[in-house]
């Protein structure tokens, strides 16, 4: 619908909308996050929900302790390899539509523990992530900003067509491989359907190619 016409109609007291807008408005205004924190980022997440930052302004004050009732997973903290299968399992147990915010350096890439033997190098190795919030830990403002970015994504989703969201496309999976505890590492170490290593090409001055990866 023409935006100008809609505004004009609104001035005349006529409310015009589309099913898509109504649907997306309803979903984005009432996201129920999973009550789930892993490390220090969780403290910032808790602060965000409390009186000072008040995430309730954005319709996300109902943190559910059950994945069955949640539609947003805020991965707040370090995911150890021992914890990773449980995180994926919780995600699989959430009903569609579901979204993931990867909060902080650890949840994005392993952060300061990236070169360790026991920390997962980012939860996006196993589940699709919608929003990445960098920081160590990110401030509540950053989480709110990430949250608003997620609301914007939801707002712009088309309900039909090839680019429709996953929960409206029966061919798209809603559950992902839960990694198994192997003898040396998680098996598989990443889900190739979800993640592939970033492509990097660096040219350096002179013959120094040590930065190329």
């Amino acid at each position, binding site marked *: 619908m023409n935006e100008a016409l809609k505004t004009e109609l609104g001035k005349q007291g006529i409310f015009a909308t589309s099913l898509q807008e109504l649907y997306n408005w309803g979903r984005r205004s009432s996201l129920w996050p999973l009550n789930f924190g892993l490390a220090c980022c969780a403290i910032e997440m808790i602060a965000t929900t409390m009186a000072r930052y008040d995430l309730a302004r954005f319709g996300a004050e109902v943190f559910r302790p059950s994945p069955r009732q949640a539609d947003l997973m805020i991965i707040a903290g370090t995911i150890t*390899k*021992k914890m990773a299968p449980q995180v994926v399992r919780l995600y699989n147990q959430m009903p569609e539509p579901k979204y993931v915010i990867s909060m902080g350096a650890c949840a994005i*890439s392993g952060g300061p523990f*990236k*070169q360790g*033997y*026991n920390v997962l*190098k980012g939860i996006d190795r196993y589940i699709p992530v919608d929003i990445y919030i960098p920081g160590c830990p990110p401030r509540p403002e950053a989480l709110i900003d990430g949250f608003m970015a997620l609301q914007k994504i939801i707002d712009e989703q088309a309900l039909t067509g090839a680019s429709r969201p996953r929960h409206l496309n029966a061919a798209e999976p809603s559950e992902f491989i839960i990694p198994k*505890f*192997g*003898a*040396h*590492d998680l098996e598989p*170490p*990443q889900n*190739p359907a979800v993640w*592939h*290593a*970033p*492509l*990097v*090409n660096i040219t350096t001055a002179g013959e120094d190619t*040590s*930065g*190329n*990866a």
Partner: protein
Amino acid sequence: MHLSSTSRPQARIPLETLKADIETNLPGCVVEIISNPSPSAQHSLLVDAEHAFAVATFLRDQRNLDYCSNVTGIDWPLKEISQKVKVKKLVDDVETEVEEVQKSLTGGYLEVVYHLYSMELKTGPVILRMRTADRADGVHLPSLTPIWRSADFQEREIFDLYGVTFDGHPDLRRILMWDEFTDHPMRRDYVEPDDYEYEPTAHDEVLRKTEAHYANKAGDNKFGDSAV
């Protein structure tokens, strides 16, 4: 404010006295003083694994070391050290001093360190060490958890990360890594899975990891990680 004399910490127990004390009270026990050359000068007692349980019981019950604050492990891989020694030798029938390189092997065992304090006497720490026979099959040491309960989780951690088996531990399971894990990550020869991911400023350890990763994947696309 009243300060009684017992509220002040007492001087540390001299290790020589304690060593002699243990050896007279527990015949057959081998105690060695390991000196610490650093400024902290925290010297320690090395006890043989066979008598360690008896020594620990004696220290707790007879010498009031009632609190075990910390248990940790150390890996000493087998290492060849070479020392330059001046030796007198006959060279062309003349006795001259010649420098010779003497090679010897050290390490080849795992070590467990206990820090003991006395709450009653307000003194400590007394540092107790035990060594395993080797780093492969002879990694058994007596558990001191029956004596100091605070050693429970820490001995499990050493079992997990160093692979020391504590005989007599009430619940010896891995504590940090999962049960199916077979490696001991804190050992110096631990090889972690080749799971390298691009780093913008790789240096030192990480740079070596990068190079090893791409050496393993020689034929692959150099600019993309194809670990899928």
